[in-house]
Structure formats: C-alpha cells, structure tokens
C-alpha cells in the first residue's frame, strides 16, 4: 500500500538485486531491529534470532522477485511473520494472546465506583521526551519495564511506535484485529505512564 516511492529505498533495492555487499550491510543495519520485533511477537528470543538470520539469507535470492508493491520494510516483516507462523504450526503451538481488557488493573484501581478519579494523575510530565531521556536512571527503568511487558504488547508497541508502521500493516503482519491492536498499544502505554509517574514521584523505578 505504502509502495516504494522512496528514491533511496528504490536505489537500495536495485543495489541489493545486483548483490552488492555494502547494500546488504546498510539494509541489515536498518531493518534487523524491526524484523526482530516481529519475530519476538511469536517466538522466544533465541528462536526469533534464528528466524531473522535465516530470513536474511533467503532475502538474497528472494529480493529478485520483490516488485515493490509494498515498502521494503513491510515486505521483510511479512517474510519474518510467515516464517514464524510456519514454525509455530509445525510445533503445534498457539500464539498466546492476552488482551481481554483495555484497562491496566493498576490504572483502573484509581477510579471510584462512579468512574471519576479517586487518585488523579499526580503531576504533569512537562519535560520533553529528549530531556527525560537524558536521565539515565529513567532510561534504565524504561528498559526494565519494557522487558517486563508481555511479549505481544511489547512487539505491537515496537512495530507501531518505533518502526512507524501504519496500523493496517501491523495488523497484517502480526495477524491481530484492529481492535486488538488498539488494546495492545493502549495497555502498553498505560504501563509506561504508571512507570514514569512512579519514577517522577519517588525517583525510583
């Protein structure tokens, strides 16, 4: 849908088709983190890393058939997702998904029975993201909380926020419905909100 209308991407693709080493170097650097995020939605860390490596090796040949109907990133992410799904199918394992409720229980507890705030947000995070990120302790804390998120929430969040996929693409790649994706994203953001609030209030993670 997004197609390959980016001239740099077009050039990169034709360089990859001609088998130029440097082009793969650039592509691996640019796209591996996103591919890993996709694989981690389905698989544990070491299986996910295996799949991503295998995918890159097949891409060397498969790129010849890439027609640019989708963007390169979306194409790569689909390859990874398909491989993961095949792997799961052969292992007869279902992808565990857990998104029954769009509210984080810890946030939900802060409302009274009439639906008003019982414990309102404590203060405004008025510093910009860049300023906040300069705080190493906060950054570490964020890492810790991100890795504690259920894998499904984290991957959906990574694809959507960090790799800037459109919702449609994420749904396609991860095989989740649009409403489930919204729940995954919202749940993860609430966790981050609660974490930053605690951190700002107490200075502790």
């Amino acid at each position, binding site marked *: 849908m997004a197609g390959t209308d980016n001239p740099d991407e077009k050039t990169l693709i034709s360089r990859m088709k001609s088998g130029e080493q440097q082009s793969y170097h650039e592509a691996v650097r640019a796209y591996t983190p996103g591919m890993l995020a996709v694989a981690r939605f389905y698989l544990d860390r070491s299986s996910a890393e295996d799949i991503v490596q295998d995918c890159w090796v097949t891409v060397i040949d498969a790129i010849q058939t890439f027609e640019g109907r989708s963007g390169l990133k979306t194409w790569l992410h689909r390859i990874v997702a398909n491989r993961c799904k095949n792997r799961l199918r052969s292992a007869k394992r279902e992808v565990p998904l857990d998104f029954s409720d769009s509210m984080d229980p810890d946030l939900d507890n802060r409302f009274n029975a009439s639906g008003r705030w019982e414990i309102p947000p404590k203060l405004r995070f008025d510093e910009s993201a860049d300023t906040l990120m300069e705080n190493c302790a906060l950054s570490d804390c964020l890492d810790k909380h991100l890795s504690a998120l259920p894998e499904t929430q984290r991957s959906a969040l990574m694809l959507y926020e960090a790799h800037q996929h459109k919702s449609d693409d994420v749904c396609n790649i991860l095989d989740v419905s649009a409403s489930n994706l919204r729940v995954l994203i*919202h749940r993860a953001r609430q966790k981050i909100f609660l974490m930053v609030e605690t951190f700002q209030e107490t200075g502790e993670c």
Partner: protein
Amino acid sequence: MLMCRDLAMIASDYIDGELGTAGKLSVKMHLMMCGNCRSFIGNLRASTELLKAHTSGTVDEEFVRHVDERVAAALDAKERGDDQT
C-alpha cells in the same frame, strides 16, 4: 456522559486520532471541564513520546553484527557459485 474512566479507556485512540467525530467531541468536552483528565492525556502523550524516543535508539549491536557477517558470507558463497549451506 463520558466519565473519567471511560476517557482513560479510549485515551490512546484519542491521541492517535483513531476516534470518530462524536467520540472526539465528547473527549474534548470532558477535557474542558476536567483538569485531572487533561493531566492524564498530557502525561500519556508524554509517555508515548518518551517511548518513541527510547525505542528508536534501541539496537542489539551484537546481533546486528552477527547477522551482517552471516549475510556477507552467504553473498560470498553465492558469488563463488557455491551452493549455500
């Protein structure tokens, strides 16, 4: 009428512009009257920005280098006309 809890439930949809006209309007009306929810939306938005800034810098250098080497080896093998194993 939209309560604070209802608003918290759809806050990400509001931030991402995924609400319809009616939904957007009722959130805006609520926000005009409710400072707590203004803080909440502001903070949730800031958290989202923070996360974006944080995750876009996160790369597992070691793994990327590993993949890079494996791809380079596969390309070499292909160039030499070997069958890749």
